[in-house]
């Protein structure tokens, strides 16, 4: 391996630190939208570990790259769902009057 | 050292200089309009120099054209967002008594 050992591990180590940092944020932050941001930091850290460990002498392994792209898309899909839920919850909270759809099993 | 690498170096230097100037302006100018002015004009001049340097370094017309397209898009986006920001700040100020 021609890369200096420390340099080879630089990105995965950064990823590990990001996971710890994001986890800390997730625990101490109160608002769910901020927690969602923290989760995205954790995910970025995991992707960096995954991709960084595939670093070869001159190319990075395409296999983890593909896994990371899949992971990024899944993560944005979930972030969007979370953001929508947070918004809807805030709407319900500030306008308690709106007619929630009656639960189907009690509408008779 | 060929003349290309000398020119690239000079262009890069100029680009970095304008970026630095823009950043200093952003930090030091007193009001939002002046800051926007520093940010958009100086930074995009800087970007232009760096884009030129990159195009020269690659030495291919096709790639130079792509770089030019990217630069154009960046300028348009910056112009639009600067306009929008200027409006927002003016509204904020007109709200004040």
């Amino acid at each position: 391996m021609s890369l200096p050992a420390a340099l080879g591990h630089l990105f995965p180590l950064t990823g590990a630190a990001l996971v710890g940092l994001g986890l800390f944020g997730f625990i101490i932050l109160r608002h769910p939208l901020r927690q969602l941001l923290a989760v995205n930091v954790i995910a970025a850290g995991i992707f960096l570990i995954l991709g960084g460990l595939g670093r070869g002498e001159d190319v990075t392994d395409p296999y983890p790259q593909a896994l990371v792209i899949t992971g990024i898309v899944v993560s944005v899909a979930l972030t969007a769902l979370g953001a929508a839920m947070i918004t809807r919850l805030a709407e319900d909270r500030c306008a308690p009057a709106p007619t929630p759809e009656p639960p189907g099993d009690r509408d008779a | 050292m060929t003349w290309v690498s000398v020119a690239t170096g000079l262009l890069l230097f100029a680009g970095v200089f304008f970026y630095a100037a823009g950043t200093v302006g952003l930090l030091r100018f007193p009001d939002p309009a002046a800051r926007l002015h520093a940010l958009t004009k100086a930074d995009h001049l800087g970007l232009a120099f760096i884009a030129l340097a990159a195009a020269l370094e690659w030495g291919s017309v096709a790639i130079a054209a792509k770089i030019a397209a990217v630069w154009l898009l960046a300028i348009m986006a910056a112009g639009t967002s600067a306009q929008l920001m200027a409006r927002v700040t003016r509204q904020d100020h007109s709200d004040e008594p």
Partner: protein
Amino acid sequence: MTAAFELILCLMILGTACVALLVRDFLAAIAFFVVFGNLMGLAWLALGAVNVALAEIAIGAGVTGVLLILTRGRLLALGEQIDGNPLGHWLNLGAAVVCSAFAVVLGAAVLSIAPDDGLAPVIDRLMPRIGVENPVTGVLLAFRAYDTLLESFVLLGALVAVWSLAPADAWPRAPAALRMTDPAALNVAESFGRLVLPIALVVAAYLVWVGSDRPGGAFQGGTVLAGGFLLAAMGGAMGLPRSDDPAFRWTLVAGPLVFLAIGLAGMALGRFLAYPEGMAKALIVTIEYFLAFSIGVTLALLVAGPPVRAETVP
């Protein structure tokens, strides 16, 4: 030289992440998160993973950033407090200790793994069989096409899940309009949106096309398309569709459906998701074009959110 650059880059990544998590003002937090995403993109470039860099900057920084800003705006309009975060409590100290300990263990585990491109030779050997040259596209759409197929359904499912949150009397209206309210600002944004949408279409098509041989692909192209749609919607150059519009529903499902159909057709010839000899590249490019278009529409609608009641639409 490279080492110094990478070291500074990693420190900046960690620094921006810290600020994004801990700063009081949430708008500043989002701004730093977007910078963080772009720096992550640089990190992927440093790793030589251009495909991932494109995806990270477009999706991780771009779409997620827009989503957070939009959600923040909607929450503030509802009078919800997002800023402020009590720090200094002893529980936070405990959390810091636990998380640092976890990061240290994780770091030790990472250090004991030698980075290598173990599967790259395997992939190189297989690439000639599918006729495309971008190995990441090869993994995504041939060797692990099953993952990608399921993932395209995750994206579609996320949109349906967002729709399921619609208030009772809002279905099947359109999502809340993204159009700017200030008429003068709208004017600027509209001309920009009109200009950008066709450019986004061309760039997206280009990214998918080069994606078979060079960095690019369906997800990157689809995200550019989504960006174009969102800008056009913000400028009012384009309305958002009602969720019961049949043509719109077909554009949503087209990508996953074509992918599934080609996979099932492969089954008739031998195996699920197997491409017949010599046709692999044509099929992959077909899948990618449909997928990119559906991804573009789906991502834009995911950002827009669930349908809303008529009176809240300006």
